[in-house]
């Protein structure tokens, strides 16, 4: 829901509550003022009559004042002011319930204290009032809502323009850009604050990113260099006169260095992927796979296996080409390493890429997929890091990566959508 609409709804709710309250109050006020008007008139009448009978009670023209009666007041102490009685009574002449208001005043006449009682009846307009007031308020409500809708649209266009601008800037922001985006000056305090904070945050993330990147590069350099030196020294050493036993030891050393540098390479990659900025392009996967798979042809043949391919034609996927190569390498290496032969099957459909290889049922739950460095005793020194890489890449690309075991086949599937 848009901010403008939210404001409108909030405003409508408040208006509704206020109007309902006003409705009740007005209704009560109108009702009360009718009664007050009657009481006032009757009170005036009583005063008038009081003056008439002040000197002579017999002078009261009872014919003229049909709604007023006088009678002697029995008690000695005279109450000040008036007494009001309001009651609903049934009027048989109009066959309807009416409100009867009776106002009594006690006056001291020359003869004795007299009580003057005036009364009147009127038909109280209950539902009629209500309907009338309700109509008025309903129209006011409709008017308010339409005005607020129009205003909120206009406001959100004008006031929220800088907000949408900011939003656009944020969505285009990439930490690997060297310059942080510029925000416009803004007259709205909140947006100005927001922009300031965002600019600061972006600068900080860019700085952090660069620092981390630099650290990675340095770490990579620092580790790689000694490895390179060791490796090159061994290359020199094996070309000096050595005995078989020494050569064998050197060979083993070299294997371990190679293993170390491949772990380092994979870890560096994983680390880089954490901050990797995708460069997506539409890649013709069918063609790519045809080419990529030929690289493994010899290895597969040397193993005495076969490569079964089912590549759908014209499959194009938005993917980072560099990452794609990593995915294919790792999935293929995994199949070569863990497969039991005699074949590896690669299937490409418009929505997925599947590497399948026969093998023993998995010892671990296939859903608890690919923990980093998962050690498989049956496969020597291999590590699950390759699959972690694929998982990471899948996450980056917002692909789904699944591992299933069906009918004796281990299936590693990358779902593109």
């Amino acid at each position, binding site marked *: 829901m848009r901010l403008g609409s939210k404001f409108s709804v909030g405003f409508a709710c408040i208006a509704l509550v206020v109007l309902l309250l006003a409705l009740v109050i007005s209704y009560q006020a109108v009702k009360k003022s009718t009664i007050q008007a009657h009481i006032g008139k009757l009170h005036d009448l009583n005063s008038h009559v009081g003056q008439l009978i002040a000197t002579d009670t017999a002078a009261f023209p009872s014919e003229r004042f049909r709604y007023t009666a006088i009678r002697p007041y029995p008690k000695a102490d005279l109450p000040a002011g008036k007494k009001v009685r309001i009651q609903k009574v049934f009027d048989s002449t109009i066959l309807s319930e009416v409100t009867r208001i009776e106002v009594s005043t006690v006056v001291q006449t020359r003869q004795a204290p007299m009580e003057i009682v005036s009364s009147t009846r009127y038909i109280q307009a209950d539902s009629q009032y209500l309907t009338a007031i309700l109509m008025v308020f309903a129209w006011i409500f409709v008017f308010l809502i339409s005005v607020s809708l129009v205003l909120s649209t206009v406001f959100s266009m004008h006031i929220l323009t800088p907000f949408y601008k900011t939003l656009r800037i944020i969505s285009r922001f990439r930490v690997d850009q060297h310059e942080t985006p510029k925000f416009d000056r803004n007259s709205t305090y909140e947006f100005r604050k927001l922009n300031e904070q965002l600019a600061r945050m972006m600068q900080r993330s860019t700085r952090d990113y660069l620092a981390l990147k630099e650290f990675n590069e340095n770490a990579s350099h620092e580790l790689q260099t000694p490895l390179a030196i060791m490796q090159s020294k061994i290359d020199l050493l094996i070309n000096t006169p050595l005995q078989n036993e020494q050569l064998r030891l050197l060979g083993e050393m070299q294997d371990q260095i*190679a293993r170390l540098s491949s772990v380092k390479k994979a870890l560096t990659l994983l680390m*880089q992927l954490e901050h990797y900025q995708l460069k997506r392009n539409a890649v013709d996967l069918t063609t790519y796979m045809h080419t990529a798979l030929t690289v493994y042809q*010899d290895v597969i043949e040397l193993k005495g296996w076969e490569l079964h391919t089912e590549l759908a034609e014209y499959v194009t996927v938005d993917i980072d080409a560099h990452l794609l190569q990593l995915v294919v390498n790792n999935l293929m290496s995994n199949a070569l390493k863990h497969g039991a032969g005699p074949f590896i099957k690669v299937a490409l459909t418009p929505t997925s890429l599947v590497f399948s290889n026969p093998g023993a049922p998995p010892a671990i739950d296939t859903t608890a997929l690919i923990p980093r460095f998962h050690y498989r005793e049956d496969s020597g020194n291999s590590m699950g890091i390759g699959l972690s890489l694929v998982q990471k890449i899948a996450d980056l690309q917002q692909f789904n990566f699944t591992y299933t075991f069906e009918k004796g086949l281990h299936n590693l599937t990358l779902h593109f959508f």
Partner: protein
Amino acid sequence: MKILIVEDEIALGQAVMEYLTREQMLCEFASNLKAAKDKLLHNSYDIIVLDIQFPDGNGVDFLEWIKMNLDRSQVILLSAQHQLETKLRGLDAGADDYITKPFDLPELSARIKAVYRRVHGNSQKKLQFNNLVIDVDALELRIEGNLVNLTKKEIQLLLFFIANKNRVVSRQAIANHLWGDYTDNLDNFDFVYQHVKNLRRKIVEAQGIDGLQTVYGIGYKMEEVVCA
């Protein structure tokens, strides 16, 4: 062939120099960009092996300077970085090849020879080794005029051996050379063994002299046989 090695890690630079010198290459060494610039301004080199990270600058920037000022020299970039962007930037800036640390010295040697061959092509298009003749462009092996049917990998392997003739080449270096970019931690040595076996069989069947020896526990060596 004259080579300048520009590498801030002196131990590594010396190892490279030592290896290449034994290959009859004339090597010089500079441990920073300033020294490298001095040498480049006073001498000419066929190939420059250039690291990327230096305390006094960036190798890729230096590469751009080289390509602008010295069009004769070929450059092989040497880097600890697996990052694609660095690689692409380097190749864009005109690097002739790119090799990632840690590398095998036989690999570097083979790459240097390949780059050299590419530039000084014509005379060396056909490689002669013992009685083997290899057409480097067509990737064909002929023995006594007869074409030997080798796979692409076998030809690559043979070229790698010849580039490092008379030297022990470890199976690790061979595996990296053949599959380096594509596989990690494969049981590559079996494949190396089988490729070597097949290559050997094919050469011997065609009456070729391969001079190939197995060096126990570590790798192979291809020796030039002086024919009587």
